[in-house]
Protein backbone atom coordinates (compact mmCIF):
# COMPACT_ATOMS: atom_id res chain seq x y z
CA UNK A 1 0.00 0.00 0.00
CA UNK A 2 1.08 3.53 -0.47
CA UNK A 3 0.32 6.85 1.07
CA UNK A 4 0.36 9.52 -1.57
CA UNK A 5 -0.85 13.10 -1.46
CA UNK A 6 -4.30 11.84 -2.42
CA UNK A 7 -4.29 9.45 0.50
CA UNK A 8 -3.30 12.20 2.88
CA UNK A 9 -6.09 14.43 1.58
CA UNK A 10 -8.57 11.59 1.80
CA UNK A 11 -7.40 10.84 5.32
CA UNK A 12 -8.04 14.42 6.34
CA UNK A 13 -11.52 14.38 4.87
CA UNK A 14 -12.22 11.19 6.71
CA UNK A 15 -10.87 12.77 9.87
CA UNK A 16 -13.14 15.77 9.38
CA UNK A 17 -16.14 13.45 9.01
CA UNK A 18 -15.21 11.55 12.13
CA UNK A 19 -14.69 14.68 14.17
CA UNK A 20 -18.06 16.04 13.09
CA UNK A 21 -19.77 12.76 13.91
CA UNK A 22 -18.24 12.85 17.36
CA UNK A 23 -18.60 16.56 17.98
CA UNK A 24 -21.17 16.18 20.76
CA UNK A 25 -19.12 13.48 22.45
CA UNK A 26 -16.05 15.71 22.47
CA UNK A 27 -18.09 18.61 23.80
CA UNK A 28 -19.48 16.44 26.57
CA UNK A 29 -16.04 15.12 27.54
CA UNK A 30 -14.79 18.70 27.73
CA UNK A 31 -17.84 19.81 29.67
CA UNK A 32 -17.05 17.31 32.41
CA UNK A 33 -13.45 18.37 33.03
CA UNK A 34 -13.04 21.51 30.94
CA UNK A 35 -15.06 24.31 29.42
CA UNK A 36 -17.14 22.41 26.90
CA UNK A 37 -15.65 23.74 23.68
CA UNK A 38 -13.32 21.01 22.43
CA UNK A 39 -15.81 19.40 20.04
CA UNK A 40 -16.87 22.75 18.68
CA UNK A 41 -13.24 23.79 18.26
CA UNK A 42 -12.22 20.64 16.44
CA UNK A 43 -15.25 20.61 14.19
CA UNK A 44 -14.66 24.20 13.21
CA UNK A 45 -11.01 23.40 12.61
CA UNK A 46 -11.54 20.38 10.43
CA UNK A 47 -14.21 22.14 8.43
CA UNK A 48 -11.55 24.73 7.66
CA UNK A 49 -9.11 21.92 6.86
CA UNK A 50 -11.51 20.35 4.39
CA UNK A 51 -12.32 23.66 2.73
CA UNK A 52 -8.70 24.70 2.38
CA UNK A 53 -7.65 21.33 0.93
CA UNK A 54 -10.32 21.68 -1.73
CA UNK A 55 -9.45 25.25 -2.49
CA UNK A 56 -5.73 24.75 -2.96
CA UNK A 57 -5.08 21.20 -4.06
CA UNK A 58 -1.77 20.41 -2.37
CA UNK A 59 0.97 18.95 -4.52
CA UNK A 60 2.74 16.76 -1.96
CA UNK A 61 2.08 15.08 1.34
CA UNK A 62 4.13 17.79 3.04
CA UNK A 63 2.04 20.49 1.41
CA UNK A 64 -1.13 18.71 2.44
CA UNK A 65 0.03 18.38 6.01
CA UNK A 66 1.10 21.99 6.08
CA UNK A 67 -2.27 23.06 4.77
CA UNK A 68 -3.90 21.13 7.58
CA UNK A 69 -1.59 22.77 10.08
CA UNK A 70 -2.28 26.32 8.99
CA UNK A 71 -6.02 25.69 8.78
CA UNK A 72 -6.09 24.35 12.32
CA UNK A 73 -3.89 27.08 13.71
CA UNK A 74 -6.05 29.81 12.28
CA UNK A 75 -9.43 28.36 13.13
CA UNK A 76 -9.40 26.08 16.17
CA UNK A 77 -8.08 28.29 18.92
CA UNK A 78 -7.94 27.18 22.52
CA UNK A 79 -5.25 24.81 23.66
CA UNK A 80 -5.93 22.18 21.03
CA UNK A 81 -5.51 24.53 18.08
CA UNK A 82 -1.85 25.39 18.58
CA UNK A 83 -1.01 21.87 19.71
CA UNK A 84 -2.65 19.97 16.88
CA UNK A 85 -1.46 22.67 14.54
CA UNK A 86 2.12 22.25 15.64
CA UNK A 87 1.74 18.48 15.38
CA UNK A 88 0.78 18.68 11.72
CA UNK A 89 3.37 21.36 11.01
CA UNK A 90 6.17 19.22 12.41
CA UNK A 91 4.83 16.20 10.56
CA UNK A 92 4.91 18.24 7.38
CA UNK A 93 8.54 19.16 7.91
CA UNK A 94 9.45 15.58 8.83
CA UNK A 95 8.09 14.04 5.61
CA UNK A 96 10.18 16.37 3.51
CA UNK A 97 9.91 16.09 -0.29
CA UNK A 98 8.53 12.55 -0.34
CA UNK A 99 5.71 12.11 -2.84
CA UNK A 100 4.59 8.95 -1.12
CA UNK A 101 4.97 8.01 2.52
CA UNK A 102 6.13 4.57 3.55
CA UNK A 103 6.00 3.09 7.02
CA UNK A 104 9.12 4.73 8.38
CA UNK A 105 8.03 8.07 6.99
CA UNK A 106 4.72 7.80 8.82
CA UNK A 107 6.48 6.83 12.03
CA UNK A 108 8.84 9.73 11.61
CA UNK A 109 5.91 12.08 11.10
CA UNK A 110 4.20 10.84 14.24
CA UNK A 111 7.39 11.19 16.24
CA UNK A 112 7.88 14.72 14.96
CA UNK A 113 4.27 15.52 15.75
CA UNK A 114 4.70 14.27 19.29
CA UNK A 115 7.90 16.22 19.73
CA UNK A 116 6.12 19.36 18.61
CA UNK A 117 3.26 18.84 21.03
CA UNK A 118 5.53 18.19 23.98
CA UNK A 119 7.83 21.05 23.04
CA UNK A 120 4.96 23.54 23.03
CA UNK A 121 2.68 22.09 25.67
CA UNK A 122 5.37 20.68 27.98
CA UNK A 123 3.16 17.77 28.92
CA UNK A 124 4.60 14.40 29.80
CA UNK A 125 2.99 11.00 29.73
CA UNK A 126 0.35 10.54 32.41
CA UNK A 127 -0.37 14.26 32.59
CA UNK A 128 -3.74 13.27 31.12
CA UNK A 129 -3.44 15.06 27.77
CA UNK A 130 -3.34 14.19 24.10
CA UNK A 131 0.26 13.12 24.72
CA UNK A 132 -1.10 10.02 26.44
CA UNK A 133 -2.43 8.83 23.09
CA UNK A 134 0.16 10.39 20.81
CA UNK A 135 3.24 9.04 22.59
CA UNK A 136 2.13 5.37 22.54
CA UNK A 137 1.07 5.93 18.94
CA UNK A 138 4.49 7.24 17.92
CA UNK A 139 6.22 4.40 19.72
CA UNK A 140 3.99 1.76 18.20
CA UNK A 141 4.51 3.28 14.76
CA UNK A 142 8.26 3.20 15.20
CA UNK A 143 8.15 -0.40 16.43
CA UNK A 144 5.91 -1.46 13.54
CA UNK A 145 8.06 0.18 10.89
CA UNK A 146 11.25 -1.11 12.47
CA UNK A 147 10.13 -4.72 12.32
CA UNK A 148 10.12 -4.55 8.55
CA UNK A 149 6.83 -2.79 8.11
CA UNK A 150 7.12 -0.27 5.35
CA UNK A 151 3.36 -0.47 4.82
CA UNK A 152 2.06 2.91 5.96
CA UNK A 153 -1.39 1.48 6.52
CA UNK A 154 -0.11 -1.15 8.92
CA UNK A 155 1.99 1.41 10.75
CA UNK A 156 -0.98 3.72 11.14
CA UNK A 157 -3.15 0.87 12.30
CA UNK A 158 -0.57 -0.02 14.98
CA UNK A 159 -0.41 3.62 15.99
CA UNK A 160 -4.18 3.93 16.21
CA UNK A 161 -4.48 0.85 18.35
CA UNK A 162 -1.76 2.04 20.70
CA UNK A 163 -3.51 5.39 20.91
CA UNK A 164 -6.74 3.69 21.91
CA UNK A 165 -5.01 1.75 24.65
CA UNK A 166 -3.22 4.85 25.83
CA UNK A 167 -6.44 6.81 25.85
CA UNK A 168 -8.14 4.30 28.09
CA UNK A 169 -5.34 4.57 30.64
CA UNK A 170 -6.02 8.27 31.06
CA UNK A 171 -9.44 7.80 32.59
CA UNK A 172 -8.14 7.16 36.07
CA UNK A 173 -5.41 9.80 35.88
CA UNK A 174 -5.39 13.12 37.66
CA UNK A 175 -4.72 15.86 35.10
CA UNK A 176 -1.49 17.79 35.47
CA UNK A 177 -1.73 19.92 32.36
CA UNK A 178 -4.49 21.77 30.61
CA UNK A 179 -7.78 23.01 31.95
CA UNK A 180 -8.62 19.73 33.64
CA UNK A 181 -5.67 20.21 35.98
CA UNK A 182 -7.55 22.97 37.79
CA UNK A 183 -9.92 20.30 39.05
CA UNK A 184 -7.26 18.34 40.88
CA UNK A 185 -8.40 14.85 41.72
CA UNK A 186 -11.89 15.66 40.47
CA UNK A 187 -10.45 15.13 36.98
CA UNK A 188 -10.00 11.44 37.66
CA UNK A 189 -12.66 9.14 36.28
CA UNK A 190 -13.11 11.06 33.06
CA UNK A 191 -11.66 10.59 29.60
CA UNK A 192 -9.60 13.52 28.36
CA UNK A 193 -11.23 15.13 25.31
CA UNK A 194 -7.94 15.79 23.48
CA UNK A 195 -6.91 12.19 23.87
CA UNK A 196 -10.20 11.12 22.30
CA UNK A 197 -9.56 13.43 19.35
CA UNK A 198 -6.17 11.83 18.73
CA UNK A 199 -7.78 8.40 18.67
CA UNK A 200 -10.47 9.57 16.24
CA UNK A 201 -7.89 11.13 13.95
CA UNK A 202 -5.56 8.15 13.90
CA UNK A 203 -8.41 5.74 13.32
CA UNK A 204 -9.60 7.83 10.39
CA UNK A 205 -6.09 7.96 8.94
CA UNK A 206 -5.63 4.22 9.42
CA UNK A 207 -9.01 3.46 7.84
CA UNK A 208 -8.23 5.46 4.73
CA UNK A 209 -4.66 4.28 4.32
CA UNK A 210 -5.70 0.71 4.94
CA UNK A 211 -7.54 0.49 1.66
CA UNK A 212 -6.17 0.95 -1.82
Amino acid at each position, binding site marked *: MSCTTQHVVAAMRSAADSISEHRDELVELDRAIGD*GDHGENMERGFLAVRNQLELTAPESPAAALKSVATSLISSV*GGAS*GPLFGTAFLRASTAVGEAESLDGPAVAGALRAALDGVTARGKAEREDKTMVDALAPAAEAAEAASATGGSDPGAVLRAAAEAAETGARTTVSLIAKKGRASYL*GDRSAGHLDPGVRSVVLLLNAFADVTGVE
Partner: protein
Amino acid sequence: VKKIINAPADIVVDALRGMAAAHPEELRVQTDPAFVARSDAPVTDKVAVVSGGGSGHEPLHVGFVGPGMLDAAVPGPVFTSPTPDAVQAAVGKADSGAGTLLVVKNYTGDVLNFETAAELVEASGVGTRTVVVQDDVAVQDSTNTAGRRGVGGTVLLEKIVGAAAERGDDLATCHEIAERVSANVRSMGMALTAPTVPHVGEPSFTLADYEMEIGIGIHGEPGRERVELESADRVVRRLLDPVLEDLPFREGDEVLLFTNSMGGTPGTELYLAHGIAERLLADRGVRVTRRLVGPYITSLEMQGMSLTLLKLDDELRNLWDAPVRTPALTW
Protein backbone atom coordinates in the same frame (compact mmCIF):
# COMPACT_ATOMS: atom_id res chain seq x y z
CA VAL B 1 -31.21 27.20 24.95
CA LYS B 2 -32.27 30.04 27.22
CA LYS B 3 -30.36 32.91 25.73
CA ILE B 4 -31.09 35.99 23.68
CA ILE B 5 -29.17 34.89 20.60
CA ASN B 6 -29.66 33.84 17.02
CA ALA B 7 -27.40 30.96 15.90
CA PRO B 8 -24.84 29.98 18.54
CA ALA B 9 -22.11 29.99 15.91
CA ASP B 10 -22.80 33.67 15.18
CA ILE B 11 -22.78 34.93 18.75
CA VAL B 12 -19.43 36.67 18.69
CA VAL B 13 -19.93 38.38 15.36
CA ASP B 14 -23.48 39.38 16.29
CA ALA B 15 -22.37 40.83 19.61
CA LEU B 16 -19.52 42.69 17.92
CA ARG B 17 -21.99 44.27 15.54
CA GLY B 18 -23.94 45.46 18.53
CA MET B 19 -20.81 46.93 20.10
CA ALA B 20 -19.98 48.68 16.86
CA ALA B 21 -23.46 50.16 16.72
CA ALA B 22 -23.39 51.20 20.37
CA HIS B 23 -19.99 52.90 20.24
CA PRO B 24 -19.67 54.18 16.68
CA GLU B 25 -17.25 57.02 17.41
CA GLU B 26 -15.09 55.30 19.96
CA LEU B 27 -14.46 51.84 18.57
CA ARG B 28 -13.29 50.25 15.33
CA VAL B 29 -14.81 46.80 15.14
CA GLN B 30 -13.69 44.13 12.71
CA THR B 31 -15.41 40.77 12.44
CA ASP B 32 -13.09 38.64 10.28
CA PRO B 33 -10.75 38.15 11.91
CA ALA B 34 -12.48 39.53 14.96
CA PHE B 35 -11.03 42.34 17.02
CA VAL B 36 -12.04 45.66 18.55
CA ALA B 37 -9.69 48.64 18.52
CA ARG B 38 -9.86 52.23 19.65
CA SER B 39 -11.06 54.32 16.77
CA ASP B 40 -7.95 56.51 16.96
CA ALA B 41 -5.51 53.60 16.85
CA PRO B 42 -2.65 53.56 16.24
CA VAL B 43 -1.87 56.34 18.71
CA THR B 44 1.38 57.99 17.71
CA ASP B 45 4.37 57.25 19.93
CA LYS B 46 2.32 55.31 22.44
CA VAL B 47 2.90 51.72 23.45
CA ALA B 48 -0.11 49.66 22.39
CA VAL B 49 -1.73 47.47 25.02
CA VAL B 50 -3.49 44.51 23.43
CA SER B 51 -5.28 41.63 25.05
CA GLY B 52 -7.86 39.02 24.20
CA GLY B 53 -9.24 35.62 24.99
CA GLY B 54 -12.44 33.64 24.67
CA SER B 55 -15.72 35.50 24.58
CA GLY B 56 -18.19 35.10 27.39
CA HIS B 57 -16.29 37.17 29.97
CA GLU B 58 -17.61 40.57 28.91
CA PRO B 59 -16.83 43.28 29.42
CA LEU B 60 -13.39 41.67 29.55
CA HIS B 61 -11.68 42.40 27.15
CA VAL B 62 -13.62 44.15 24.36
CA GLY B 63 -15.42 46.41 26.82
CA PHE B 64 -12.09 47.78 28.02
CA VAL B 65 -10.95 49.20 24.69
CA GLY B 66 -10.38 52.93 24.71
CA PRO B 67 -8.14 55.71 25.94
CA GLY B 68 -6.43 54.78 29.15
CA MET B 69 -6.84 51.04 28.86
CA LEU B 70 -6.65 48.69 25.85
CA ASP B 71 -5.79 49.75 22.35
CA ALA B 72 -7.28 46.56 21.00
CA ALA B 73 -8.95 43.38 22.19
CA VAL B 74 -9.29 40.06 20.40
CA PRO B 75 -12.41 37.99 21.18
CA GLY B 76 -12.32 34.31 20.36
CA PRO B 77 -15.39 32.07 20.27
CA VAL B 78 -17.13 31.56 23.60
CA PHE B 79 -14.57 30.30 26.09
CA THR B 80 -12.04 29.66 23.30
CA SER B 81 -8.73 31.48 22.88
CA PRO B 82 -8.52 33.43 19.63
CA THR B 83 -6.10 32.36 16.92
CA PRO B 84 -2.76 34.05 16.20
CA ASP B 85 -3.91 35.62 12.95
CA ALA B 86 -6.61 37.57 14.78
CA VAL B 87 -4.15 38.81 17.39
CA GLN B 88 -1.76 39.74 14.61
CA ALA B 89 -4.46 41.74 12.87
CA ALA B 90 -5.29 43.57 16.08
CA VAL B 91 -1.66 44.41 16.73
CA GLY B 92 -1.37 45.57 13.16
CA LYS B 93 -4.12 48.10 13.81
CA ALA B 94 -2.91 49.14 17.24
CA ASP B 95 0.86 49.31 17.05
CA SER B 96 2.25 52.76 16.36
CA GLY B 97 5.86 51.70 16.14
CA ALA B 98 6.40 52.19 19.86
CA GLY B 99 5.84 48.51 20.50
CA THR B 100 3.00 46.40 21.87
CA LEU B 101 2.44 44.90 25.27
CA LEU B 102 0.41 41.71 25.11
CA VAL B 103 -1.64 40.91 28.20
CA VAL B 104 -2.25 37.18 28.35
CA LYS B 105 -4.32 35.28 30.88
CA ASN B 106 -2.61 32.12 32.03
CA TYR B 107 -4.55 29.43 30.19
CA THR B 108 -2.74 26.98 27.91
CA GLY B 109 -4.65 28.14 24.85
CA ASP B 110 -4.24 31.85 25.51
CA VAL B 111 -0.54 31.43 26.18
CA LEU B 112 0.16 29.32 23.10
CA ASN B 113 -1.90 31.38 20.67
CA PHE B 114 -0.49 34.69 21.88
CA GLU B 115 3.00 33.18 21.81
CA THR B 116 2.63 32.36 18.14
CA ALA B 117 1.09 35.75 17.49
CA ALA B 118 4.02 37.47 19.17
CA GLU B 119 6.41 35.55 16.92
CA LEU B 120 4.51 36.55 13.80
CA VAL B 121 4.30 40.13 14.92
CA GLU B 122 7.97 40.37 15.85
CA ALA B 123 8.85 38.82 12.52
CA SER B 124 7.00 41.70 10.87
CA GLY B 125 9.09 44.23 12.77
CA VAL B 126 6.88 45.09 15.74
CA GLY B 127 8.51 45.00 19.16
CA THR B 128 6.46 43.11 21.72
CA ARG B 129 6.48 42.15 25.36
CA THR B 130 4.13 39.72 27.02
CA VAL B 131 2.82 39.70 30.57
CA VAL B 132 1.03 36.60 31.79
CA VAL B 133 -1.64 37.13 34.44
CA GLN B 134 -1.88 34.33 36.98
CA ASP B 135 -3.60 35.70 40.05
CA ASP B 136 -5.98 32.89 40.98
CA VAL B 137 -5.02 31.36 44.33
CA ALA B 138 -7.61 28.59 44.03
CA VAL B 139 -5.11 26.59 42.04
CA GLN B 140 -2.64 25.87 44.78
CA ASP B 141 -0.10 23.61 43.12
CA SER B 142 1.59 25.29 40.19
CA THR B 143 3.91 22.39 39.46
CA ASN B 144 1.33 19.69 38.94
CA THR B 145 -1.18 21.82 37.10
CA ALA B 146 -1.30 24.15 34.13
CA GLY B 147 -0.53 26.91 36.64
CA ARG B 148 -2.64 29.62 38.21
CA ARG B 149 -5.42 31.01 36.11
CA GLY B 150 -5.61 34.64 35.07
CA VAL B 151 -8.78 36.05 36.52
CA GLY B 152 -9.80 39.31 38.25
CA GLY B 153 -6.30 40.69 38.34
CA THR B 154 -6.47 40.99 34.57
CA VAL B 155 -8.94 43.88 34.82
CA LEU B 156 -6.76 45.82 37.23
CA LEU B 157 -3.62 45.14 35.22
CA GLU B 158 -5.18 46.30 31.97
CA LYS B 159 -6.32 49.54 33.58
CA ILE B 160 -3.01 50.28 35.24
CA VAL B 161 -0.75 49.43 32.36
CA GLY B 162 -3.15 51.18 30.01
CA ALA B 163 -2.58 54.33 32.02
CA ALA B 164 1.18 53.83 31.90
CA ALA B 165 1.06 53.54 28.13
CA GLU B 166 -1.24 56.55 27.90
CA ARG B 167 1.18 58.76 29.81
CA GLY B 168 3.97 57.78 27.41
CA ASP B 169 5.94 55.08 29.19
CA ASP B 170 8.05 53.01 26.85
CA LEU B 171 7.58 49.30 26.24
CA ALA B 172 10.10 48.13 28.79
CA THR B 173 8.59 50.34 31.47
CA CYS B 174 5.07 49.28 30.66
CA HIS B 175 6.18 45.68 30.88
CA GLU B 176 7.85 46.31 34.23
CA ILE B 177 4.71 47.91 35.62
CA ALA B 178 2.62 45.06 34.30
CA GLU B 179 4.87 42.53 35.97
CA ARG B 180 4.72 44.47 39.21
CA VAL B 181 0.93 44.38 39.14
CA SER B 182 0.98 40.70 38.29
CA ALA B 183 3.31 39.99 41.19
CA ASN B 184 1.11 41.86 43.67
CA VAL B 185 -2.41 40.77 42.77
CA ARG B 186 -4.35 37.76 44.05
CA SER B 187 -7.91 36.51 43.49
CA MET B 188 -10.38 33.79 44.39
CA GLY B 189 -13.88 33.06 43.16
CA MET B 190 -16.99 31.03 43.96
CA ALA B 191 -20.20 30.12 42.19
CA LEU B 192 -23.83 29.51 43.10
CA THR B 193 -24.79 28.37 39.60
CA ALA B 194 -22.88 27.32 36.50
CA PRO B 195 -22.98 29.04 33.14
CA THR B 196 -24.49 27.48 30.04
CA VAL B 197 -22.25 27.59 27.00
CA PRO B 198 -24.45 28.34 23.97
CA HIS B 199 -23.23 25.52 21.74
CA VAL B 200 -23.38 23.03 24.61
CA GLY B 201 -26.97 23.82 25.63
CA GLU B 202 -26.78 22.69 29.23
CA PRO B 203 -25.05 24.00 32.34
CA SER B 204 -21.32 23.35 32.57
CA PHE B 205 -21.84 21.66 35.91
CA THR B 206 -24.77 21.14 38.25
CA LEU B 207 -25.12 22.34 41.77
CA ALA B 208 -27.98 21.41 44.07
CA ASP B 209 -30.04 24.11 45.71
CA TYR B 210 -27.98 23.82 48.87
CA GLU B 211 -24.54 23.69 47.22
CA MET B 212 -21.94 26.18 46.11
CA GLU B 213 -18.63 25.75 44.28
CA ILE B 214 -15.48 27.26 45.75
CA GLY B 215 -12.41 28.13 43.72
CA ILE B 216 -14.03 28.42 40.32
CA GLY B 217 -12.48 29.98 37.24
CA ILE B 218 -14.16 31.94 34.50
CA HIS B 219 -14.76 29.15 31.97
CA GLY B 220 -17.45 27.19 33.78
CA GLU B 221 -15.16 24.42 34.89
CA PRO B 222 -15.85 23.03 38.36
CA GLY B 223 -13.81 24.48 41.20
CA ARG B 224 -11.65 22.99 43.91
CA GLU B 225 -14.50 21.92 46.11
CA ARG B 226 -18.24 21.73 46.34
CA VAL B 227 -19.66 22.61 49.74
CA GLU B 228 -22.98 23.48 51.30
CA LEU B 229 -24.31 26.97 50.85
CA GLU B 230 -23.17 29.31 53.61
CA SER B 231 -23.88 32.81 54.80
CA ALA B 232 -22.25 35.71 53.00
CA ASP B 233 -20.02 36.27 56.04
CA ARG B 234 -18.55 32.80 55.61
CA VAL B 235 -18.42 32.88 51.82
CA VAL B 236 -16.40 36.08 51.84
CA ARG B 237 -13.97 34.61 54.34
CA ARG B 238 -13.52 31.51 52.16
CA LEU B 239 -12.38 33.82 49.37
CA LEU B 240 -10.52 36.47 51.31
CA ASP B 241 -8.46 34.33 53.67
CA PRO B 242 -6.64 32.34 50.94
CA VAL B 243 -6.01 35.56 49.04
CA LEU B 244 -4.58 37.30 52.11
CA GLU B 245 -2.40 34.36 53.05
CA ASP B 246 -1.03 33.83 49.60
CA LEU B 247 0.90 36.98 48.78
CA PRO B 248 0.72 37.53 51.78
CA PHE B 249 -1.05 40.80 52.38
CA ARG B 250 0.01 42.21 55.72
CA GLU B 251 -1.16 44.67 58.29
CA GLY B 252 -0.38 48.14 57.04
CA ASP B 253 -0.48 47.16 53.37
CA GLU B 254 -2.46 49.42 51.09
CA VAL B 255 -4.75 47.64 48.68
CA LEU B 256 -7.28 47.95 45.90
CA LEU B 257 -10.27 45.70 46.61
CA PHE B 258 -12.14 44.46 43.55
CA THR B 259 -15.43 42.70 44.23
CA ASN B 260 -16.58 41.13 40.99
CA SER B 261 -19.86 39.60 39.90
CA MET B 262 -19.45 36.49 37.75
CA GLY B 263 -22.34 37.76 35.61
CA GLY B 264 -25.60 36.69 37.17
CA THR B 265 -25.22 37.94 40.74
CA PRO B 266 -27.21 41.09 41.42
CA GLY B 267 -25.81 44.37 42.69
CA THR B 268 -27.35 44.06 46.16
CA GLU B 269 -25.48 40.83 46.88
CA LEU B 270 -22.27 42.18 45.44
CA TYR B 271 -22.24 45.30 47.58
CA LEU B 272 -23.26 43.21 50.57
CA ALA B 273 -20.26 40.94 50.04
CA HIS B 274 -18.01 43.90 49.39
CA GLY B 275 -18.99 45.41 52.72
CA ILE B 276 -18.07 42.22 54.52
CA ALA B 277 -14.70 42.12 52.77
CA GLU B 278 -13.98 45.74 53.72
CA ARG B 279 -14.81 45.02 57.33
CA LEU B 280 -12.61 41.92 57.44
CA LEU B 281 -9.73 43.82 55.88
CA ALA B 282 -10.12 46.67 58.32
CA ASP B 283 -10.05 44.12 61.16
CA ARG B 284 -6.69 42.95 59.86
CA GLY B 285 -5.26 46.41 59.46
CA VAL B 286 -5.13 46.16 55.66
CA ARG B 287 -5.97 49.60 54.29
CA VAL B 288 -8.36 49.67 51.36
CA THR B 289 -7.81 52.91 49.47
CA ARG B 290 -9.37 52.01 46.13
CA ARG B 291 -12.36 49.89 45.14
CA LEU B 292 -14.02 48.39 42.12
CA VAL B 293 -17.44 46.72 42.46
CA GLY B 294 -19.42 45.22 39.60
CA PRO B 295 -19.51 42.64 36.79
CA TYR B 296 -16.18 43.19 35.03
CA ILE B 297 -14.83 39.70 34.32
CA THR B 298 -17.69 37.30 33.97
CA SER B 299 -18.58 33.79 32.97
CA LEU B 300 -21.75 34.17 30.91
CA GLU B 301 -24.71 34.05 33.31
CA MET B 302 -22.89 32.35 36.17
CA GLN B 303 -24.13 33.46 39.59
CA GLY B 304 -21.18 33.99 41.83
CA MET B 305 -18.47 36.40 42.80
CA SER B 306 -14.73 36.81 43.04
CA LEU B 307 -12.51 38.95 45.22
CA THR B 308 -9.27 40.45 43.99
CA LEU B 309 -6.70 42.29 46.08
CA LEU B 310 -3.91 44.32 44.56
CA LYS B 311 -1.19 45.70 46.79
CA LEU B 312 -0.82 49.33 45.86
CA ASP B 313 2.09 51.73 45.89
CA ASP B 314 1.92 55.40 44.98
CA GLU B 315 2.62 54.81 41.32
CA LEU B 316 0.09 52.03 40.89
CA ARG B 317 -2.52 54.07 42.72
CA ASN B 318 -1.93 57.06 40.48
CA LEU B 319 -2.13 54.88 37.40
CA TRP B 320 -5.40 53.43 38.66
CA ASP B 321 -6.76 56.96 39.17
CA ALA B 322 -5.74 58.17 35.72
CA PRO B 323 -8.58 58.94 33.32
CA VAL B 324 -10.07 56.11 31.30
CA ARG B 325 -12.77 56.11 28.68
CA THR B 326 -14.05 52.68 27.64
CA PRO B 327 -17.49 51.10 27.35
CA ALA B 328 -17.17 49.45 30.75
CA LEU B 329 -14.91 51.74 32.76
CA THR B 330 -14.96 55.48 32.54
CA TRP B 331 -13.63 58.12 34.90
